């Protein structure tokens, strides 16, 4: 893990994210969003969390992005030009960024270098999921089922 790689990927990621937040066309913004998430996944790879990175790509590109473009398709009539940027929001965002950066830079304990750790294999994650995290896993399964049913109910055509 070298700083150069991190910085390059971070710049790409943040540029894509910025594009997602500011591009006029919704479809372009969505695609930029997908690119930004690929960048985040790459950062995960660099941090040694390969599995999470793959899951992120799998879930966000394979599912969430497709869902978003479908929604854009279904609400197409409304996809007009957004009105001019909201400066209040931009100011707030910058202020939050400044505040967070200031806090991070001021905290000395986070200026550490990564220790050498054992590779976290899929097997270890699987074992953790099936032992100490089995209840959260079940809960998430339940949540996803509930979300599935809820989403279906929400978009179901009302019977005439």
């Amino acid at each position, binding site marked *: 893990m070298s700083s150069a790689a991190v910085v390059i990927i971070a710049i790409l990621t943040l540029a894509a994210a910025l594009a997602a937040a500011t591009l006029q066309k*919704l479809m372009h913004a969505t695609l930029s969003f997908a690119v930004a998430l690929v960048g985040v996944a790459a950062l995960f790879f660099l941090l040694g969390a390969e599995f999470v990175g793959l899951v992120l790509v799998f879930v966000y590109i394979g599912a969430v992005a497709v*869902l978003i473009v479908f929604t854009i398709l279904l609400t197409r009539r409304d996809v007009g030009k*957004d009105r001019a940027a909201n400066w209040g*929001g931009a100011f707030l965002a910058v202020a939050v960024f400044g505040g967070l950066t200031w806090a991070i830079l001021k905290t000395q304990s986070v200026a550490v270098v990564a220790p050498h750790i054992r590779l976290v294999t899929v097997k270890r994650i699987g074992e953790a999921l099936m032992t100490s995290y089995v209840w959260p896993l079940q809960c998430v399964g339940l949540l*996803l089922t509930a979300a599935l049913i809820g989403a279906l109910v929400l978009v179901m055509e009302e019977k005439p």
Partner: protein
Amino acid sequence: MTPTLQLFLIISAALFSIGLLAALSRRHAIFILIGIEMMLAAANLNFIAFWRFSPQSQPPTGVMIAIFSIAIAAAEAAVGLALVIAVYRHYRTTNVDHLNQLKG
């Protein structure tokens, strides 16, 4: 030269702020959703970074939390987009400026 935790935290803070920007300054409901997803991704990045830069734990807590958070984010996206479609059906718009019937 190896990067420190600070670098990742700043990247994450930047991503979070960009997400906030999208959620605050755009009027289209889908943009707000994208912004929220970006903020969640930033949070995940924080989890992973803190996990990576702290002494090793068994089970890998940060990774586990990130996985669960991704699952929850997926559920949130599904329901959120379904809501957008339902709202669009009803009001023929997804501009949140016009969706203000719940005002005081």
